[in-house]
Structure formats: structure tokens, C-alpha cells
């Protein structure tokens, strides 16, 4: 049984990748993930705001209160060096993980605006990252911004990062584009070595006691995999870059489905956070059993076996199927 797969030009021992989550902030946990069978790890994200806001805040508070009163022309000693805590800790963590484990370590950088933050991709490469996942989290809340402008930002960011590093770069993004397929192709054309589908956005909630907006993150459920499943299946025939499935992958069957749809790897976070790295062992075992049962001898053989190019009825991924499903319902279904 050959579990090997290739993702972003990296040879991986199997398609199970730990996606960006707090798990990667602890080196022992990453070691456990490796021992349990994960083939690569994507680190938690370094956010643009952590890079820029920290600098701005430091500059602001070191300067604004000073030079207004004769006895206190400043309120802080002048630091001779400026470290960017989050960024440096992050780079340090890349090094630590690289020293601690043999599996590839993919660094993740998360941002959207123009600016110096993309230069950290280079530093990540220097720190030893095997690849970079550019995580673009953007809510186009400003009605003045057109969809074309939003799309261009993604392209610009990707090109900025690609232009500064030699290692492969993937883009992790959400599905909310008028034409996601076109967006995916454009990203590939702009140099993306892979796409990670999909980002799970932080969704706000309301606290009814304090009447405040809460921004806690709820873990995914297996059901949510259907969105990436559809898009990977639909886009696989059109894209030559790597594809990673993420969101809602909890079981061996989820991994198998993603692979059949055409994903090169399946990324997991929620299930690892919920059940711990140990959950990977039964998943791999179950995959093996299923593959044996279905007589697949390798992951490569499975990849895309159920993509839109391979299934008998590609409309199942599109609107026709939707009508069929709805019409298939009757009131009895609710009883």
C-alpha cells in the first residue's frame, strides 16, 4: 500500500497534514503529531497585524506622550534594538520545529494590505520553512471596493510573496468569490504552487447577556467538508497546481473523499484539537482497510478518481443536483 503523495513539490509519506492551528506552537505536540503519522505540519499563522500593529503601537507610545512637558520630555528609555516579538518568536519556532521533526514544516503568513509584512516570507524561508502558506483573510466590508479590486489584492499579495522566496507558496483562501474557479486559475497563473481550500473565517456571534459581539472560533464538523469537496472535484481537471483540502476533515472517510475528489493532501485541525494526535493512527488504519477493500494500491491512484472529469454525472456538483435534492424531499422526510 503506497500512501505517498506530492504536495507543493514536497514528497509526503501520506496525505494527512496538520493544518494551521495552535497545535504547532508546542514542539512536543508537533513531535506527537509526527509520531502519530502526520506527513507535514502547517504552522499557526503569523498575522500582518502582529507585525505592523506592534511596530505602530511601540512607535506611538514611545513618541506621543513625550516632548510636551519640560520635566518629562519622554517616558520610556530608548531601546537600542527593536525585536518584533510575534515575528521573531515565529521564526524561532520554525527553527525549533525543523530541528525537532523530520516532516516538512510549512510556515503560514496571514495578511491582506499592501506593506512590509510580506517581507517576513523571506525570513520564514531563511528560518528553514519548507514552504509558505499565504493565508488571505479578507472581508470586503467596504461597499466601495469592487470584486475586481478584491481579487487583485489576492494576486498582488501572492506575487509579493512569490517574488521574495524560492520555496513553494500556496494560497489558502475562502470560497466567497463570484467565480471561484476563475479566481483559482488566476492564482495558479500568478504563481501559486498550490491552493488550500478553504479557509474557515472567524464568524462573529452575539453575547446576549452583555450585548456584545463575540469572536470566538467554533471547531469544524465533518459536515462542512462538502464545500471543499465540491470545489476540489470541480477544479481538479482545470488546475495543475497542488490542492489541499481543509475544513471538516475528521475521519478516514473524509480523507478518502477528498483524495478521490482530487486533493493532494487533506488538512486537519479541529479533530486534532478535539481528540489529540492519537486520532491519526485509526484514521490511517481505516484508510488502509478501505483501500484494501476497494483494491486501491496507492493514493496517487485514488487522486481525482471522482473529480468532475471522472464521475459519470458532473452535474451532481452543480445546480442540477440541487434541484434534484430539493425535489427529492417530501414532507415525510421531516417526520
Amino acid at each position: 500500500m503506497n500512501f505517498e503523495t506530492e504536495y507543493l513539490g514536497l514528497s509526503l509519506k501520506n496525505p494527512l497534514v496538520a493544518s494551521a492551528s495552535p497545535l504547532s506552537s508546542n514542539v512536543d505536540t508537533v513531535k506527537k503529531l509526527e509520531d502519530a503519522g502526520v506527513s507535514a505540519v502547517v504552522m499557526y499563522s503569523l498575522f500582518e497585524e502582529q507585525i505592523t500593529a506592534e511596530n505602530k503601537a511601540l512607535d506611538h507610545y514611545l513618541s506621543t506622550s513625550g516632548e510636551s512637558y519640560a520635566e518629562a520630555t519622554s517616558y520610556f528609555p530608548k531601546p537600542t534594538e527593536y525585536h518584533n516579538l510575534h515575528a521573531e518568536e515565529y521564526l524561532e519556532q520554525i527553527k525549533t520545529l525543523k530541528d525537532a521533526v523530520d516532516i516538512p514544516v510549512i510556515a503560514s503568513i496571514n495578511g491582506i494590505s499592501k506593506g512590509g509584512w510580506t517581507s517576513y516570507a523571506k525570513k520564514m524561508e531563511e528560518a528553514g520553512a519548507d514552504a509558505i502558506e499565504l493565508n488571505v483573510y479578507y472581508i470586503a466590508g467596504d461597499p466601495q471596493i469592487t470584486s475586481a479590486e478584491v481579487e487583485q489584492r489576492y494576486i498582488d499579495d501572492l506575487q509579493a510573496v512569490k517574488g521574495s522566496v524560492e520555496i513553494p507558496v500556496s494560497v489558502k483562501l475562502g470560497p466567497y468569490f463570484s467565480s471561484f474557479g476563475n479566481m483559482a486559475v488566476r492564482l495558479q497563473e500568478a504563481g501559486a504552487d498550490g491552493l488550500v481550500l478553504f479557509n474557515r473565517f472567524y464568524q462573529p456571534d452575539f453575547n446576549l447577556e452583555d450585548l456584545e459581539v463575540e469572536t470566538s472560533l467554533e471547531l469544524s464538523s465533518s459536515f462542512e467538508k462538502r464545500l471543499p469537496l465540491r470545489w476540489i472535484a470541480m477544479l481538479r481537471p482545470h488546475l495543475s497546481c497542488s490542492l489541499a483540502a481543509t475544513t471538516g476533515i475528521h475521519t478516514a472517510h473524509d480523507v478518502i473523499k477528498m483524495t478521490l475528489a482530487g486533493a493532494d493532501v487533506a488538512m486537519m485541525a479541529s479533530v486534532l484539537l478535539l481528540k489529540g494526535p492519537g486520532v491519526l493512527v485509526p484514521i490511517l488504519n481505516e484508510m488502509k482497510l478501505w483501500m484494501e477493500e476497494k483494491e486501491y494500491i496507492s493514493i496517487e491512484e485514488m487522486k481525482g478518481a471522482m473529480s468532475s472529469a471522472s464521475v459519470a454525472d458532473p452535474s451532481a456538483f452543480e445546480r442540477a443536483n440541487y434541484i434534484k435534492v430539493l425535489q427529492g424531499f417530501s414532507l415525510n422526510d421531516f417526520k
Partner: protein
Amino acid sequence: MSAKKVTIDANEATAYIAHHLSEVVAIYPITPASPMGEWADEWTMGGKKNVWGTVPEVVELQSEGGAAGTMHGALQTGALTTTFTASQGLLLMMPNLYKIAGELTPAVVHVAARTVATHALSIFGDHSDAMAMRMTGMALLSSNSVQEAMDMAMIAHAATLESRIPFIHFFDGFRTSHEVQKIDQLSPEIMKKMIDEDWIINHRNRALTPDKPVLRGTAQNPDVFFQARETVNSYYNACPEIVQKTMDRFNELTGRSYKLFEYHGPEDAERVIILMGSGAETAHETVDKLNEKGEKVGIVKVRLYRPFSMEHLIESLPETLQGIAVLDRTKEPGSAGEPLYNDVLAALQENRAEEWKTFKKELKIVNGRYGLSSKEFTPPMIKRIFDELKEEKPKNHFTIGIHDDVTHTSLDYDADDWESDDDLFEGLFYGLGADGTVSANKNSIKIIGDNTDFNAQGYFVYDSKKSGATTVSHLRFGPKPIRSAYLIDKADFIACHQSQFLNRFDMLKHAKPGAIFLLNAPYEPDEVWDQVPQKVQQQIIDKNIRFYSIDAYKVARENGMGTRINTVMQTCFFAISEILPKEKAILMIKNAIKKAYGSKGENILQSNYAAVDNSVENLFEVEIPSKADSALEMRPPVPDEAPEYVQKVIAEIIAGNGDALPVSAFEADGTFPTGTTKWEKRNIAQEIPVLEPDICIQCGKCMMVCPHAVIRMKAFEGELLEAAPETFKYMDARGREWPENTKVSIQVSPEDCTGCELCVEVCPVKDRKQVGRKALNMEAIDPLLEQEIENWEFFLTIPEYDRSQIKAETVKGSQFLEPLFEFSGACAGCGETPYIKVITQLYGDRMVIANATGCSSIYGGNLPSTPYTTNKHGLGPAWSNSLFEDNAEFGLGFRLTIDKHEEQARELLKQMNGSVENGLRDEILSADQTTEPGIFEQRERIGKLKKLLEKSDSKDAKMLNSLADYLVRKSVWIFGGDGWAYDIGYGGLDHVLASGRDVNILVMDTEVYSNTGGQCSKATPLGAVAKFAAAGKRIGKKDLGLMSVSGGGAYVARVAMGANDMQMMKAIVEAERYPGPSIIIAYSHCIAHGYDMKYGLQQQKLAVDSGYWPLFRFDPMKIEEGENPFQLDSKAPKIPLKEFAYNEMRYLMLTKSQPKVAKELITQAQKDVIEQWRVYEQMVKVYEPEKEKNE
């Protein structure tokens, strides 16, 4: 090799030498010397080595007395040791200086000479501190300029080692310590060459060591002390020659020549001024010009003042001399003359006997005082003194620079009788503290200094308010050396960085004809002219001024720089001033930006670059019409209805005309009326809080937290509303305690608000229809200003509610009481003033305050206007500041007087038979004054008593009348910060806590020396960065609370208004009620913590929730009542310390400067918090009454 040029101030220049030539540096903050200690600390933390290859040890002490003691110890054990100080700090060192000198110990004390507090404190410069050291035996070496500060520091360090006489090296506080000049930097190689290493070895050989034990510091008797004291004479005799030799050696190495008494002027001068300090630079410049015009005048710059070499002085004087004016920058009341004058007189007298020199004519010699507390000393004044010397009988013991209309000491002079050089560029820049004007100008000086052959000078004037402070930068550039140690009066370039200054300050009175005026204003090119007051328009036309404008805030905002307009205005300055070619200047600005911000991140760099480019594009020249037709007028400094004294004195100071006030304007003993801030309407808020009366619950929290008492609450009868303005807001009073038809108004004084937003942040009410809105919301002031002024004025006419009917001891109730502390100059969002305010609401009408020097004495008592005020009966806090170190003792003195006078009054009253009816007498003597009504009734009785006493002509009645008011309970409060309570004043505080006397101490704990710029105190927490702890504080905060509890006899509370305001109220009330000493340690957020002050209360809460700041009250009275006196008022830590700490730059910046250290320290700090909580829980158990323990 030519010397490296640096553009720095004298504090940095001096510290640079001192750090290079010392092994031990003992420091303590005091204005204006603090930056020297800060530099030394930062350099040591950065690993900078001295010239002998080792990093000097820098240690902060608890006071200057401590620093001197440590210096003495380090010297006695053989280290090369230095310290930095000024003013009272130097005075505190004095006992040790006698010792250090008496033991012939080489050392240098660098002093940024500052006024010693007398009738008032002043942070500014004169020689009263240095002059007070004449008796100590220290050598006194004066520097007159920034360059000299570096050079004389070097000469002092060398000469002390050779001569064994310890040196005080001094230069003028602020004028020199804070003046930025382009100077030659001494290299470490030169420093090394200046010092013979044998001198160091000799110093070490004299050290106390058990390897060669000796004894010093004996006690001696009449038989030997005198002769032993005379042993030092030969050293003092040799010292002047050694200093001159050192100066000569320095000249060989640097080409800069100095003399002990340095004459400058023609060989045949007839008139000479003798002086020292920065005034000598101005005099140097003046005599050059006067001599060009054919006068024969000179000056003698006194460099080595002690030991005073009479022979050298006489040698320096030209034989043709006819008149001498000796100028002293100090005052010795009651003396025959000021010190330098007396020394010169003695020298001239001895010259007669010794015949060192024969003068061709009889000498007239006079003495004058100038420049006290940095009073301006200018060429016209110097010219006037030279003119006076032409008189047959020149005025002696004169003053110059003031108008003395009482004892008529002053010389009148014509301030306009002077013109500066044509090739000198002089620029004035008016800005706000927060807008970056000063930093931009410091940067411009560096750009010009570092990149051109021009000489450059910068001096910065700040006002006395900590919020909305105005700054004026004085910049000079030119090809010749700049010796003008005075402010710019006539400028080539005037920049107004804030359009609201247009109608407040007469800036263009300082414009030379043809000057350039640059205005930052939010107006389009065709609007600007009309927005300029008529007077300013006329000045522009009359003086043919070129007028430019830019909307700098817009440019800054659009380039991601928020409200920092520094880069924008700096670019405009270079673009139009033509000091440098525009393109070159812009390139240099960008280079400077890269240097300043490069390490702070690419994004900051890019925004600044963009701002530079956009500034040029947005700058425009305003077309000047031929007529000044603006409808706008300049605003008067105070309203017309202000009292006469305020109009005549305070208003003049506010308007910047304080220099013109005569001596007669002031009380001889430093007394001022209270309640003057209300007349100084500063209009500094951009936004003010606006009330939603429909949803307000009248909780009082917004009033309680308002640092400036600008938001007020009153309850009143509904009938009063008939006269209310249309937009006046009010509500029905909530709660059953109010009579029917009682209304409540919450009103803001818009012109006094600083816009800090604390009130909005603390408001607990959300608008349920729009939950982002609260019962208070910030709104732009412009459309509201007029109506809210009217509403505020109406609000003031509403009578205060009867105090006896209010539950004053609750948060809500207290806020219906009139605050007697209002509109102070404290920082916007200050965490100290809300505590003071609420105490004045409760006890202001009967309190007397002893205030330690620090922030609270500055916002409490710095002119022009002061915040403590009175109620309608004229009652209110009486306030005074003695010193920094003695405040607890000062307050104890108040208590002793009050108790003694009360006792005397009681004794006298008991003896009053007949003239006071028995009923009244007994009622007075037995009155219960523990409640508001009780005090009110007693006041009524005392009123009656005094009327009766006035009718009597007996001696006892007269005496009793003078003491009768003491029969009404008085509340003594002792206010101060942590620098005082934990460090310099701790000995006294400890003693007062053990005195058993009824005083109330409020420690406003900001955890640093806030007023001097955030230096570390023993209250600074582990892991926080502060000045003097640049690498993070390594030792935990001292627990003043538990230390105070341990004495057992004092009421002790630790409070944090933002965490539990009810607990704070209880603590204040219990402390005041406690018949012995009480201490309240109040968490006070501060701009030195590095975050937006509007979150001050949230941070207080987090401090408590994390367990860092446990709340407690310890009430010894409860022991007798069988209850547990130790009440822990907060819960066990429930959030990690980081959640509190890393919201604040003081903690966070260590993670950026030293991430590993930061990690270690925050881990340790977290452990300490847990341990601290365990101790506090134990304290509760320790104090459990026996019966509970047994149960």
C-alpha cells in the same frame, strides 16, 4: 584629525564624558538633571564601556542623599565615581559633600544648576544650588555652553584626580542642559590622554581595604580638630594651577583654550562684566557687537569659582578698567552682596596689598542679579548694564530683566535695542506636545547640524500643563558660532502647527519684516485668509510676511500617521525656508526618517516617506489681499467677569506676558488665591462627552472618574428649569431618596474638557436600540461648543444640593457633592486626580493638604492657574508643597498645629464665663462631628461664638476668636506619589504612620517617578521597563501596604478605583474616620505605562483580576470590636498576569528590546503574583479573632 561633530544637549554631552570616565555612577532623578542619569543607565544597559574597557556600574538610589552616600562609599573604597543632580538634590547631597571634600576624595558631581525652592518651587535654571555649595570644600567649575559642558566635564574629571579636590561641574539648567547645539565630540583617546593612570592608581591606593587597613571618619575633639582641618590648605592652594594646567593640556589636544577667569574684549576695555554660566555666552556675543560700534567693553567668564584664585582673577582684568559689574544668577537675601560680587571685592581689596596689578583709574564696582529661574538675559540687558557703568555713580545691587516697583532695584532697559546678525536664521515653531513639533525640530537641527557646515542651536519651551500643552521651539542656524543663550524675539520663520493658536497667541509680534509664516489649518487656499484673525492679517500685511498653509492633519491621516504631523510640518519647513536646497533637504529628511524609524518596521518607514512627498504637494502660498478684513478677533486670556486679581496677574501669565508683571503684583510670602483654573478656558478637546438622558441611570461613575472635574451632576428642584437654555439636558432624579419633582442634570464644561474619554469608557449603560452607544458618547465639539458653554453657565447657577441630605459615602452620592479640585493641568486621562477630586468632594470644605513634590504638586500648584477651589461659603482645601522628601512630616506638622489650637481653643472656651452662654459652650465642647450635619451644626455654633467674642474686648476672647475655627473638625491629608512614599520620603512616612496622629495619607501609585519622566521607583513592578531600569525591573515591587500593616497602629487600604469603586469609597471614608494615621495606596494609571489612557480603568480591573494588585483594608479599630481587621476585598487571581501586563508598553517593550529577559521576568512575576496571593490569604487568617480561630 578633526573632531567628530555631534548635535546634542549639555546633559548628553556631560553624561557622555562622565560615563566614559567612571566606574560607579550613583543616580537619582531630578529635573533638569535626570537625562544625565538616563543616558548613563541606557549606556550601561547597552554594554558601553568606559575608556578603560569596563562597563560602569550604574545604580539608582532612593534619594540624592542616598546617591551621595553611595558615592562617598564607592569613593572611599577606591572607585572612580560620579553622580548627577540639581537644586534640592544637590542640597540633599550637601552633608556628604563636606565629608567627601574633607577627606580629599577625587570625584565629580555634575549639576544642571536649578533654582532652589524658596517662596515657590521652580524647575528652571539659576545658580542658587551651586552657590549653596560654597562652604562644602567642593571645587566649583562652570560651563557656559553645550560644548563647554563636554569640555569642562573632562577637565573636572582630570583635575579632581590630580588635585584630590572633588569637583562640582555645573551648567545652567534647561538653558544649557536642554539646549541642543552642534559641538565637537571628545574621543575616548583624548579622554585617556587627559588622565594620568598613576592618579587612578593613587586613588585606589588610598582606598579602604582590609588588606591595608586604615581608619577614616574619626570623631575629634577641640584639641586637634582645628589643626587637622587646616591640613588640606596646600591642596586647595595648588588646585587652581592644576586646573589651568589641565585646561592647557586640553587645549593642546583639542585646540580649545580655556582660562580660570577668561577675559574677552579689547586690551584697553574700560568697562567689564564678570559672570558665569550661559549668560556669559550672551555677554560674549554682546560685547563683540558693542565693540564693533566703538565701545570699549569686555567680559570675564568665571570658570573655576572655587577654589577662588584672586590672583588669576586680577590678572585677567585689563589695566584700563574703570567700571566692573559683577553679575550673580542667585540671591542671598540679607547679604552684603551676592557671592561672586563679594569674592571679586575681596580680590580687588587684596590686590591693593599684594599689588598683582595696578589699575590706571579708580574702579567703580557694582553688583547685579539677573536670570533667576531662567529669567531671560538678553543683549539689550547687557548693553544697559554697560551703559549704567558709564554713570558717575552707577546703581549698585541692581536687578535686570524684571520691573521692581517696590524696592526699585531694577534697571529699565529697551528690549528692542538690538539686532541679530543678518546671516543668522531664527525660527519659531508653535505646536502642541502631542503633535510631534518638538521632535521634528530636534530632528531638523540634527539634519542641518550633521549635513552642513552651519552651526545649529535648538531650545524648547514647554508650558506647565500636562494635557494640551503648548510647545514653542526656538531654532537658530548660521555660519558663525551661536552664543545666543536666550529666546528668539524676532524670527525669520514662524510656524503655527495648530490653527487654534491663531486667536490665542500673538505669534507674529515676533516676525521680522519679510518673514515667512507657515500655518497648519484645515482650510482650502481660498478660505485660509478669512480664518485668520484681523490682528494677524494686519501683521502679515504690515510686515510684508509670506504666508504658506497646509492641512497637515489631512496629509498625516492619509498616510497612516494618525495625528502625528511632525514629518509633514518638517518637510514644509524645509520646502519654504530655503535653508537648504529643497531636493537636498527632502533627501536628508528621508535619510533621517530611515535612521529614526528603520528599526521600527518597514510600514512606519513607508508612511513617513509618503507623508514627505505628499506634504510638498499639499503646501500652498496664500495670496495676501491688501486689506485686513477678518471678522475674527483674538480671544482674551480670561473672561471679562474674572476677578480683578485674575485679570491683572493670572491673565497676563496665561497670555505669555508674565515677564512684564512687576514685583508688586506678588505677595511677599508666595501666597496665591485658590480656584483660578476656572478662568483659564483652554479649549483643548476635539470631542466632548454628550449625555443621553433617556438611558442614563445616574450612577455617578462618569463624574467620579473624570480627572478634570469637567463632568458634573447636580440634583435640583424642577422649578429651576424655567430659566434653563433650550438644549439643557436633565432627568427625573432616580431613587426614592429624592423629594418629588427633583431633577438631575449631568453637564460637561466643554472648554475645560480634555477629551480623554474615561467617562465614556466607564459608562455602564448601553442604548438597547443601538448597543454601541452608551449613556455618554463622544461627539465633535465644534457644533456643540456654543450651546454647551451656555448650558454649563446655567448649570453653575443651580445651587448645590444640601450636603446633609446626600448619602455622601456612596459612589453615586459622593458625585452630587461639589468637587473642590477642578480643571487641573494633569494629563488627559490622569489616574491620580480622580482620587483627589473625590476626597475634595467629601472633605474639601475642611481639609488641609500637604503635597509632596511631583505630578500632584505640579497640577496642584503650578502657575498660572491652580485647581483647588472653594465652595460658595468660601471654604475649601488649603494646600501647600514643602519638599519632595519631607511631605509626611510636613503634614504631621499641620496636624500638630490643628490639635494644639483646638486644645487651646477648648481650654479658653472652658474658661469663658459670662461672655459665652453655658449652653452654647457645652454644645460646642461636646459636639459630635462625625457626620456632615454634625459639622454643619458646629460651624453654625462657631459662627455664633465668634460674633459673641467680637463683642468682648478681653484678651482671652481675642485669643479664642483667633482659634475658634479649630473647634470645627479639620481633615489633614498628605498627598504624594510612589517616588515620595516608597523611596525618598519613606523614612518620614514610616515615622508618621507610627505617630498615632490623625493624618490621612494618599499615595497615588503610578509605579514610577511620573513627573520626571518615568524613572524606576521601588513601586515599579518586576518585569516592567522604566527609565533607570531600561533592561526591565529585576526586583519585585515593595509591598508598602503590608509594611504599613505590620506597624499595627495605622489604617491601611489598597484601592483601585477602576476595579472596585465602592471599596475605594469605603477606604476613603474609613481612613478619614480613623482617629490615627491612615494610608491609602491607590492604583493610578499613568501615561508612563504606555497605553491609551481611556482604558485606564479597564487596566486597573485587570491588575486586580490578575492578582497583581490585591485590594484590602486593614482597620485596627476592628480588633477592639472583635472583628477581623484585615479585609481582603478582591478575589484570587483569575486571569494570567500577561493579560494585564501586555496591554501596556512598559511591559511589552521589553519583549521587543530583550525578548528572552522579558520571558524570564514575566514568568517570575507570575509566580510572585501567586505567592503574593498566598501571603494575603494568610494575612486574613493571621488576623482572625481568637474565637473564630478556635471555632
